[in-house]
Every structure is written in structure tokens, then in C-alpha cells.
């Protein structure tokens, strides 16, 4: 497989959110605005790339039977780094993502890539795979966040598109997350069938 395909598969063909339905908790939980979605996506991308890198490096040293706990320790280490860095430099984002930052550790996407890709491939392709899947995830979260922000409060990234009074508040709240993602996936399935 050439490296470009390896990178680009995360955006459309094997997109974590729209196709594989991995990492649904942060997808629904933090996308009440486009900015939060982007922040979460990039934090996950960092963890994914670093975890893939380290796991590809040490894959021959880990006995097969304890590989899952070993992967979890590697992932948890990078999650802790993200958590501390974000608390220090981006306290506002840290506040609004809240509980979902430590929960990156149980995001099935990260463990899934470690198990399915990084433990079988070399360092270079593992990094590219992590980058592609991570940015694809970030893209999905940003799209969903922007959609909910427009429908709910008439803004994108805080810039007003139409007055807030015309917004449908429900899209910023919990039910809107499920409904918006449902229709988004239906739309993407439709586009895929046409293509």
C-alpha cells in the first residue's frame, strides 16, 4: 500500500466516526461547538500518532499475551501528557472538554489502531496511519461541531452567521447531538452510494 493511500484512508473510506463508528462518546459529548470539536480531535490525533510511534518501536519486545495492558499504559502516558499540557496552556478548552480528556484513554479508535495497525507495521507507516486516522477524526468532529453550532446558535467558530434568536437550541443540547450525527451519517452513506 502506498503512503498516500495509507494517509488518506482515514478521511473518507475508513473514517473513524462516519464509517467505523469508533470513539462515539467524545464525538457526541464535546461537539457542541466547532472549536471544542477541533480541540478534541487534535488532542486525540496527538495521542494516536505518539502511541502508534511508540508501539511500532516496541512491538517486538512485548509478549503477545500482555500486549493489550502494555498498549493501554503507553496510551495512558500520552493522555496524561496532553491533559497536563492543556491544563497549563489552554485552560478554557480544558474546562469545556472536562472529563473527556482522561477518557481519550478508553477511546476505541486509539486502541483499535494500536492493535490493528501499529503492532504489525513499521514506524513510518504507523505514524502516517495515526496522522491520517487522527486528522480524519478531527475533521469529523469539526464538521459535526460546526453543524450543531450553526443550527443551534447561528455561529461558526464564534462568528455570527445569523442572529442567535433564530437558532434551534436543541442542537446544542444532548438530543441534538444524536439527531445531527444520525442525519450526517445518512447523508454520507448516500454520497458513498452515488460515488
Amino acid at each position, binding site marked *: 500500500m502506498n503512503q498516500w493511500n495509507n494517509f488518506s484512508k482515514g478521511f473518507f473510506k475508513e473514517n473513524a466516526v462516519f464509517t467505523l*463508528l469508533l470513539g*462515539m*462518546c467524545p464525538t*457526541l*459529548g464535546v461537539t457542541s461547538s466547532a472549536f471544542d470539536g477541533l480541540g478534541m480531535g487534535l488532542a486525540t490525533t496527538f495521542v494516536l500518532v505518539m502511541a502508534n510511534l511508540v508501539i511500532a518501536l516496541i512491538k517486538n519486545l512485548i509478549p503477545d499475551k500482555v500486549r*493489550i*495492558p502494555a498498549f*493501554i*499504559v503507553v496510551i*495512558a*502516558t500520552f*493522555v*496524561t501528557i496532553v*491533559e*497536563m499540557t492543556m491544563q497549563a496552556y489552554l485552560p478554557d478548552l480544558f474546562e469545556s472538554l472536562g*472529563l473527556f480528556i*482522561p*477518557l481519550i*484513554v*478508553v*477511546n*476505541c479508535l486509539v*486502541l483499535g489502531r494500536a492493535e490493528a495497525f501499529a503492532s504489525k507495521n513499521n514506524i513510518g507507516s504507523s505514524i502516517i496511519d495515526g496522522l491520517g486516522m487522527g486528522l480524519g477524526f478531527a475533521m469529523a468532529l469539526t464538521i459535526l461541531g460546526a453543524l450543531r453550532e450553526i443550527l443551534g446558535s447561528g455561529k461558526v467558530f464564534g462568528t455570527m452567521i445569523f442572529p442567535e434568536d433564530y437558532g434551534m437550541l*436543541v442542537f446544542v*443540547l*444532548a*438530543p*441534538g*447531538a*444524536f*439527531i445531527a*450525527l*444520525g*442525519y450526517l*451519517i*445518512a*447523508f454520507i*452513506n*448516500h454520497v458513498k*452510494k452515488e460515488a
Partner: protein
Amino acid sequence: MEYVLIVISAIFVNNIVLSQFLGICPFLGVSKKISTGIGMTGAVTFVMVIATIVTFFIQKAVLEPFGVEYLQTITFILVIASLVQLVEIILKKVSPPLYQALGVFLPLITTNCAILGVAILALGLEDTNIVKSVVFAMSHAVGFGLALVTFAGIREQLDLMDVPKGMRGTPIALVVAGLLALAFMGFAGIV
């Protein structure tokens, strides 16, 4: 009274799945039949309560005295992962019928973010103690069960409906979950 408020708030007002978005994977994954939904709820309740008790003592007896709270994520997830294995082994030996009922769901629970989420949330309660944490964990588990079983019931009916082609499968399930969440929003403000 305080405990009653915790229970009502955890089950209805701040339902773990429908308003806090934890445990979405099993919520979407094992909700095709009511019976599997009930099995999953049993396993989650079991592990959630034990995990909350164990992580509570680790936080109070190890992490806080030594001032290493930043290791919380890494310790808790390891404890939960090994706990799930342990529960599986003990259950297999002590109660084969229960193992038969819950067995298949146990390995899935390690990556259920509701377990880690509730363990962390329980430590954030006001003047927290062990009884309060257990009540907190148990009522969140009941809330999870309520959402999961209701959703499974709707999905069983949904199989018989004529759903538009593009909406079949996940999209319609998500929209149904959204409507369910809308119904649960009606409880907002009662606590």
C-alpha cells in the same frame, strides 16, 4: 434525602448515556435485543460498583498521600482492566450460571468509558465518602440500564418498520436515541 437526590439525579436528570454521553459504544452496540441489553446492564452494574470502590481507596490511600494525583488516569485504567479480568476468573469459578449470563459482556467493559468516567466523577462529589460513591455508582448503572433496555425495546420494534433506505441501520438508531434523549430532558430541573 441527600442520597435520594443523588439517585434521582443520576438515573433521570443526568442520565449517563443520554445526557452525559458516556458508554455510547455498548449503548449502540448491544442494543439490538432486550435480553442482551439486560445482560450488559448486569455486567456493567457489577463492574462499575466494584471499580468505584477500588479506585476510591486507591485515590485516598495512595495517590493523595503521595501527591501523585496526575497518575490518576494511568492507574485507574490499569486497575479497571485487571479488575475486569479478575471478576471474570472469580465469576467463572464461583457462579457458573452468572458467568454464562454475563461472560460475553465482561471483556467489552474494559473499553466502556462509563466505568472510568463514573469512577472519576465519583471522586468529584462534595465531601465524598465511600457510601456516597457506591450509591452514586449504582444509580448511574441503573440509569445506564434504563436507557439501554428502553432503547433496545424500541429497536426491536424498529426492525418491523419500513425505514427509508438511506436511514437504515445506524442513522435511524441515532435519531431514535436523540428522541429518547429529548424525552429525558423533560426531567431537567426536578432536582
